[in-house]
């Protein structure tokens, strides 16, 4: 096989026929998650992860391409030096405010 791009052989309409319902459901899931956050039993917080999600959503509808890579970069630490010590073993999925670059 060639090392160049391998475009999807399906037509635009065939792609929509195949995956529209699946992604319609994903949009509703996302909406339902944001609705869920609007009705907490206790006080609401300004969680940086939700803010990151809202910012990512704006990239979805900005009319430009390359959305996935751009969202990945928005959610990434883009500093370049190793940190002094690992603060934990896991990851959070977005950059905590103190570490934002």
């Amino acid at each position, binding site marked *: *096989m*060639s*090392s*160049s*791009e*391998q*475009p*999807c*052989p*399906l037509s635009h309409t065939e792609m929509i026929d*195949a995956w529209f319902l699946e992604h319609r459901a994903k949009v509703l899931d996302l909406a339902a998650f944001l609705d869920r956050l609007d009705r907490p039993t206790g006080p609401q917080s300004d969680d940086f992860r939700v803010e990151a999600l809202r910012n990512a959503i704006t990239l979805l509808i900005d009319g430009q391409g390359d959305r*996935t*890579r751009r969202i*990945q*970069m928005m*959610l*990434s*630490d*883009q*500093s*370049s030096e*190793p*940190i*002094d*010590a*690992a*603060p*934990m*073993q*896991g*990851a*959070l*999925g*977005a*950059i905590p405010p103190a570490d934002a670059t």
Partner: protein
Amino acid sequence: MKYIDPHIHMVSRTTDDYRRMAQAGCVAITEPAFWAGFDRCSVDGFRDYYRQLTDTEPKRAAHYGIKHHCWLCINPKEAEDIGFAREVMSAIPEFLDRHNVLGIGEIGLNKNSKNELSVLETHLALAKERDTLVLVHTPHLEDKYKGTMLIMDAVANAGLDSDRVLIDHVEEHTVGAVLDRGFWAGMTLYPDTKCTPQRAVDILERWGTDRIWMNSAGDWGDSDPLAVPKARMEMKRRRHPAAMIEQVTFGNPVAFLGRSPNFSVDV
């Protein structure tokens, strides 16, 4: 159609998973050393783990006609205690000549700390000294981009040939740089935290099919040991040719792994 899952942690999986993978066409796997979900507290605990990878798992896999290979290291999640990590690394050479060991892995970074980088550099020096292949873990989520860049620089500084190093867990924001610098790239198919099968096929469509493979990285967490055949089905559903599916899920793994004299698979 047969396939290879080049990154899966079978010590965490049941025998039923071996059976289902074989039924789906899996003929070979490679199992990198990884974090058990807790920090081990003795070097002998690692020795037992390396015995499991080089003795027990090959026998379990053979019951289902699957060739089992492995990689040895201390995972970056256990690299922060640098003294202990160095003790563990000193035990690795005892096992490197065992019949199914392909090289050093999955080494890399987790939170991109100075100690993790130091342990990575020691692993890379061992790989250079023993002339082994290297399988690299890149960090999770927000740490992946930075860690991938640091890792590629560390490999270059160690004097290793990028063509003998696979950088794993690439995603849309790292795959281009990894391939451009001459490394092999692995896409891990996870439900939430890495690539879905659909996004992995999107990456193939955008960045091509040379020097890239897909794996399930099935382990004790949210993961799917049948993720590779599911990605193959996604490629088929999009009407990609059988030769392309075969290349990414069998031919490419054979091409990279075959550089180790300890790799074998019926072709």
